[in-house]
């Protein structure tokens, strides 16, 4: 027969193993959650190098329904596509700040940009960019005009731009602004005058 004190010892050891297991599982889950959270908060594309440049960006100001050029110092790579992406990401970063002149949904980001010809660019955005965008004709048009004008001012030679959402075509940004069409940058330059 096993002595009583030995039974108690074994029971305590088993209990300790059980508690340790539970604690380890919880810590692991917490780590995973933190990692996931960090991944979601992080840019979807790697940060790229480049030299700091003094550029002009066209920002939307909801309060006075206007777009205004503002100076900015941004690290921009030499590659044309990366330069376009970083320029657009800078504009969105201004809108994601608190307080924001033109608030956008959390997680709004430029996933990628690519040229389908020398002068035609596709801008692929994250789903929250459209899903979380405030609905309204003016608000939506201000966002698109701000992005396209800033892009053409800092990346020469772009004649047409089209936006995708999470790799797919979408009819409108948030119920109003046309996302199916290609935007001629020259036409958008005229459109921007509506916001002066």
């Amino acid at each position: 027969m096993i002595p009583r004190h030995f039974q108690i010892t074994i029971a305590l050891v088993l209990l300790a193993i059980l508690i340790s297991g539970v604690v380890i599982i919880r810590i692991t889950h917490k780590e995973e959650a933190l990692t996931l959270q960090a991944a979601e908060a992080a840019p979807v594309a790697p940060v790229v190098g480049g030299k700091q440049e003094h550029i002009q960006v066209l920002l939307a100001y909801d309060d006075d329904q206007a777009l205004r050029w503002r100076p900015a110092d941004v690290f921009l790579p030499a590659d044309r596509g990366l330069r376009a992406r970083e320029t657009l990401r800078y504009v969105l970063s201004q809108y994601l700040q608190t307080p924001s002149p033109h608030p956008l949904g959390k997680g709004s980001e430029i996933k990628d940009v690519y040229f389908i010809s020398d002068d035609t660019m596709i801008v692929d955005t994250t789903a929250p960019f459209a899903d979380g965008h405030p609905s309204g004709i003016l608000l939506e048009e201000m966002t698109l005009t701000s992005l396209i004008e800033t892009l053409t001012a800092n990346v020469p030679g772009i004649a047409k731009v089209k936006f995708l959402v999470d790799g797919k075509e979408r009819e409108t940004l948030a119920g109003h602004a046309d996302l199916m069409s290609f935007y001629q940058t020259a036409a958008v330059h005229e459109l921007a005058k509506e916001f002066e």
Partner: protein
Amino acid sequence: MRWSKPGIAPAAVALFCAMAIAGAVPGQQLTVYTSQASYSPPVFDRGGKPYIAVADLLSPVGASAPHLKGKEWRLELNKAEARFTAGKDKAAIRGQEADLGGKALVEDGRVMVPLAAALPLLSRLLNTTVDFHQPSRRIFVGNVSMRFTAEFKDGDAPSLVLNFSQPLKLLDSSHEEDHSGLLLTHSNKTTLTFRKDPLVSDLNKQDFGAGAIQSLSFTEENGTASITVTGNKPLQIIRSEDGKTVTLQPQAPAVAAAPEPAPQSIPATAESQRRGSEFFVMIDPSHGGNDKGASFGGKLVEKDITLRLARELRKELEERGIATRLLRDSDIDLSLERRAEITNEQHAGLYVAFHAGRPGKGVRVYASFLTDPQQPLASRFMPWESAQSGALGRSQIAARAVSDELRKKGLTVANLAMPVRPLNNLASPAIAVELTPEIDDPQSLENQKRQNSVAAAVAAAIAQVRSQLGGRP
């Protein structure tokens, strides 16, 4: 071009062939009236029982084509699903069992159900009230029905005036002994047949005596409604400019002798041509159904504001004798592309979309802005994304006129050009009118007086520039 007329003839031939092959009962049809359009799927005889094809019934309201999954045929409409099994008399609609009134049949990939099943299918999938006049095979989806009153004037020049609650879209006439195609009758019986208008009436028959106009009766059968007027003389039919009044009166001898009918009398052949060019305003209450549009706190959402504005504009325009059609008159889903297709197919004289949004105050009036102007592919075809290019000048005229009228009402107005979907997809003149809240007061969007003021200004502007948009002044 998605709205090209040349496509209609082959489609009609294909439909006729399909009907012949499928065994449709010649001439037998069901008519479904919705706020957007009316359509008439053929009725088939299967074992002495009337059947309809599910696709014919539901595709025009936006359902997907039925597809086979396992043993079940499935289709989707408004994110709701209907499932049918060949040989079963029950279907699952929105997850609930529904009695079809007979077995579902599958013939060459077409799912057929008894005619009676049209009611549960439409009402549950569209999630709206549906009124089914089964003996006459007429279905009214939502609150679409129109009514009429009859006013008989006796005397030396008797007349019967029929006043309709909405402008007539189509008016066909037939006369038992008249094959001339004119609206002048040569018999004692004149029948007005309403194939596209959702006309209903509680009136069966009304007698007026033994004179030139003796009685009026209303009947419904085979997907159509008819008003039959009897008398002892041939009758002349005069339709008012706004399409809401039809007057029947004994044929005047001078008119009968004239080589051509009087200007107001519309030859049946010319009538069909005039239908296509009749000026009407297509009013689009933007958003609807699951698409709420902008939210303004609480339960105040854009889709409800736009519908109220649209109804108000309809009232204002009709008071001015201008025909209107609403793209939606209830809380339904309707894609932007479909809105453009309907407007183009029906050849609207002007498209007016209502919106409500922040920021700002007052009203913003938008004409289209072509983001990527393209040349037409051929003389009769335009790219979908720049279909507006041929009408842009007239759209700008309409937008300026609306802005001017709104300013006269003391409202703050901005006149803008923006690529608002679906303006660029429309072949007709098109504008969007966006109501914005007064400073930090979203409730001002619900202000009835303000809404009336906006609708009245838009209507006044349209009446003013109607002739420049292609309509008669």
